[in-house]
């Protein structure tokens, strides 16, 4: 009997590591896909799940700076991002907005396969999301962000006052309480890219109210208003 079991155990000893190795390769962190704006029962900024937990947590900016190391490789040590908009500025953004965006990426409501493996819960805990958010919110916003061509700022201002100001604020300061991002000090290329994606339904965690406002905007309109936003004064 013991001999028979030994044989079976030997097979197990060979097979289990083989299966585990296959699983490990298959386990490469792939971003999940949660229902977003394309889904009929999508509720923007629904107060539930991890976002709610992170919002209730007390963020610690000192721990946040330590946890931010996995973000700094792309967003920069001062979270200044890149002028070409490849990585957005995070410095000075509202903590609530940062928590919403991070938890949306983690849950798969905002598609970002490049960022996901660095922001997923196998790297960062919910508490760390809150810590990073308060660390970033307190960082200074500097006026050296990437700007647009400045070709039609008067028209850009007109569009901004008409369609954007009521939510994003007179000087683009946004609203932490309402989860509206600050747009001042942000890189032009990033503002433009996200505006296009929001208009086209590709940013799946977008606010449907905003989609409605900009759905008739041409690419040129989006560029002009993004240009204006990138030049808003910093308070």
């Amino acid at each position, binding site marked *: 009997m013991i001999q028979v079991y030994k044989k079976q155990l030997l097979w197990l000893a060979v097979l289990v590591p083989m299966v585990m190795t296959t699983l490990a390769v298959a386990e490469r962190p792939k971003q999940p896909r949660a229902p977003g704006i394309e889904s009929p029962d999508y509720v923007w900024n629904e107060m539930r799940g991890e976002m709610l937990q992170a919002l209730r947590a007390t963020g610690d900016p000192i721990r946040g700076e330590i946890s931010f*190391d996995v973000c*700094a*490789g792309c967003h920069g040590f001062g979270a200044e991002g890149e002028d070409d908009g490849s990585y957005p500025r995070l410095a000075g953004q509202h903590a609530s907005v940062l928590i919403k965006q991070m938890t949306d990426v983690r849950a798969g409501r905002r598609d970002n396969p490049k960022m996901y493996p660095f922001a997923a819960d196998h790297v960062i805990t919910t508490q760390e999301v809150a810590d990073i958010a308060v660390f970033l919110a307190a960082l200074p916003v500097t006026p050296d962000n990437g700007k647009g061509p400045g070709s039609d700022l008067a028209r850009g201002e007109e569009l901004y006052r008409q369609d954007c100001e009521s939510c994003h604020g007179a000087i683009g300061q946004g609203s932490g309480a309402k989860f509206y991002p600050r747009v001042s000090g942000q890189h032009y290329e990033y503002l433009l890219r996200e505006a296009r994606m929001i208009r086209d339904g590709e940013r799946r965690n977008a606010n449907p109210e905003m989609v409605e406002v900009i759905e008739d905007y041409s690419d040129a309109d989006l560029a002009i208003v993004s240009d204006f936003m990138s030049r808003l004064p910093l308070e």
Partner: protein
Amino acid sequence: MQTLAHSGSGRAIAARPAPHRPRAQVVVGALLVAIAMLAPPPTLARDAVEIINSLCVACHGLDGNPPATAFPRLGGLQAEYIEKQLLEYARGERQNPSMQPFAEGLSRIEMRALAAHYSTQRPGPGVVTNPQLVERGRQVYHEGNRETGLPACAGCHRPDGTGTPRSVFLAGQNAPYVFDQMRLFANEERTNDRGRLMRTVAARMTEEEMRAVAEYIASMR
């Protein structure tokens, strides 16, 4: 049992009633005590330098500066990092047929002693094997690659390569060793990285980027 009886061990003697031969027991007992006092029991932790001289010195040197660049430099690496690697070599969680048998023979206390020894050694100057790659490597290390979403190494390992409690000290590490490790991470053959971060990063690197960044790391001091 048979061998025990033939060897005339203390237990076999004691089991036999021998009231007229009490001296033999005393002599055997005294001998055993003397032997026990002379030879330290093997379970006690050995001194780090003693272990290094018998196991590690040929590849890693006593001061952590190895004779060949295929082996990692250990001087100045975080003690927590060295201890973690030894433990994971022993458990097979970092697979390395050369290191595993050495690590398996170490107790946890010995691993900690080795880690403490090497972490406090001063690392010697790094050895650049291909100087033409250093500038390209500097760019990859500090800027990453925006096209492929490769983060700058400097984010976690710091701009000066000294690392943090969570990311290993890199400055001056041997280029062939660093290159090998990046390849292993990219191929999912080394899997003991925090949060799969190095596997993610290395999988986004070209071989050219790996070679260049390894040379730049070797040049850092």
